[in-house]
């Protein structure tokens, strides 16, 4: 029987994944694997995945068949930085949640982006802390009710992609999980055309258990809704403020190919120590 293109990148013995039925994390996995496949990557021997703690952090660990470091909550980026600096030959990819990367790990995200550290970071914005049962995340919509915002979320969500685009990061994009093809292509870009410096992908994918089902929707219904709700940045910019509130701006926020941290660091050392 024909085999799913993703299976060769997975540890079959631990499938199915531990995610809830319908959890969109699995769709991201498809897009990622399809990107690998289309780039002709046969196996992931030279890839290292680093993740923190949270549902999304379980994507690489243990499911993806590659070296993976499942680190502490919020600390994936520094660990990944250490890996990359110690062996710049490796492709280092961070996958994590909005809580992990933007709340407790926000400082590392900001500074890795500022340094233009040679990493690809994929952040699943599922609007909540999935693993700990749906508390508010920095991405939770204003007014939303969660276990920690029983009277409605008084905070405003963080536009993570925009903030990172405001740093020295090379490549920043946001896609909705419903935008499979552009998401997949963007991953390809971030691994090929833009293969150095800091690359950040925000993947908008509401938690099926703590957001979608709480809204009384099925994962499929929500996916179809998202196909309308998520629009390209340009379209979004042309909308009225009220319309904007109801939509998610997606697309590539920034695409540059400046030297990353490692090149710059090496350049300075070579200059000073007289090596060429």
């Amino acid at each position: 029987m024909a085999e799913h293109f993703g299976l060769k990148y997975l540890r079959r013995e631990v499938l199915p994944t531990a995610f809830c039925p319908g959890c969109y994390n699995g769709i991201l996995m498809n897009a990622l694997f399809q990107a690998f496949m289309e780039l002709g990557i046969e196996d992931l021997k030279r890839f290292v995945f680093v993740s923190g703690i949270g549902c999304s952090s379980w994507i690489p660990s243990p499911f993806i068949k590659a070296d993976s470091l499942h680190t502490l909550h919020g600390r994936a980026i520094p660990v990944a930085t250490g890996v990359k600096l110690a062996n710049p030959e490796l492709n280092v990819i961070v996958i994590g949640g909005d809580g992990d990367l933007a709340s407790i790990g926000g400082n590392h995200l900001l500074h890795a982006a500022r340094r233009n550290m040679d990493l690809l970071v994929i952040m699943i914005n599922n609007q909540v802390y999935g693993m700990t049962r749906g508390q508010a995340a920095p991405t939770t919509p204003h007014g939303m009710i969660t276990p920690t915002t029983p009277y409605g979320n008084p905070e405003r969500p963080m536009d993570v992609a925009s903030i990172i685009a405001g740093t020295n990061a090379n490549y920043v994009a946001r896609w909705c999980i419903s935008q499979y093809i552009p998401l997949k292509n963007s991953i390809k870009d971030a691994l090929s055309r833009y293969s150095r410096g800091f690359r950040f992908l925000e993947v908008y994918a509401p938690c099926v258990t703590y957001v979608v089902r709480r809204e009384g929707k099925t994962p499929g219904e929500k996916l179809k809704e998202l196909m309308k709700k998520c629009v390209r940045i340009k379209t979004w910019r042309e909308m009225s403020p009220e319309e904007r509130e109801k939509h998610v701006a997606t697309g590539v926020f920034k695409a540059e190919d400046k030297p990353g941290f490692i090149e710059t660091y090496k350049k300075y050392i070579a200059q000073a120590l007289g090596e060429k």
Partner: protein
Amino acid sequence: MRSAGFLGIGGQGIVFATTVLGGALYRLGYYVAQLQNYGASVRGGAVYGYVVFDEDEIVNPFIEELEVLVILHEQGRRRWENIVRKSKKIIYDKDLVKPVENGIPMSIAEEADKHGVYRALNMVALGIASRILGVKGIDEAVDEVLRSRKNYELNIKAYEIGLELAGRARI
């Protein structure tokens, strides 16, 4: 000190069943202690929950044998073998659990499905446990607890099916 508990997997509502039982016994004025063991429950894994109750304060709720134990899933049985081995009245779902020595096999899930209360399988299990425990006033207390929660209709129906199943089996 008396006790009853449930074994199953994540998603079966074991903790809820335990909590309702505990809540009912509390309403009846007992000293109650409830404990459960689970993982990230939406995502599977063995789940175990039980209550101990008494007319006096409970010295120690950490016990190795239960008076009544309802087993809804093989994973639960496997992980808590030592509890299963030592417990007294054991009822298990004969389709989902491997045969248990001295246990009473029943078609719990199947019956639940048949009666359209599969989603409240845990309440069927609760009904069974309740009937076997035979504590005075328990049904009313359970009813009261369930009224304060979501899906009362479904749950109480499932509970009653459980009562009946246990009754039929004359345990």
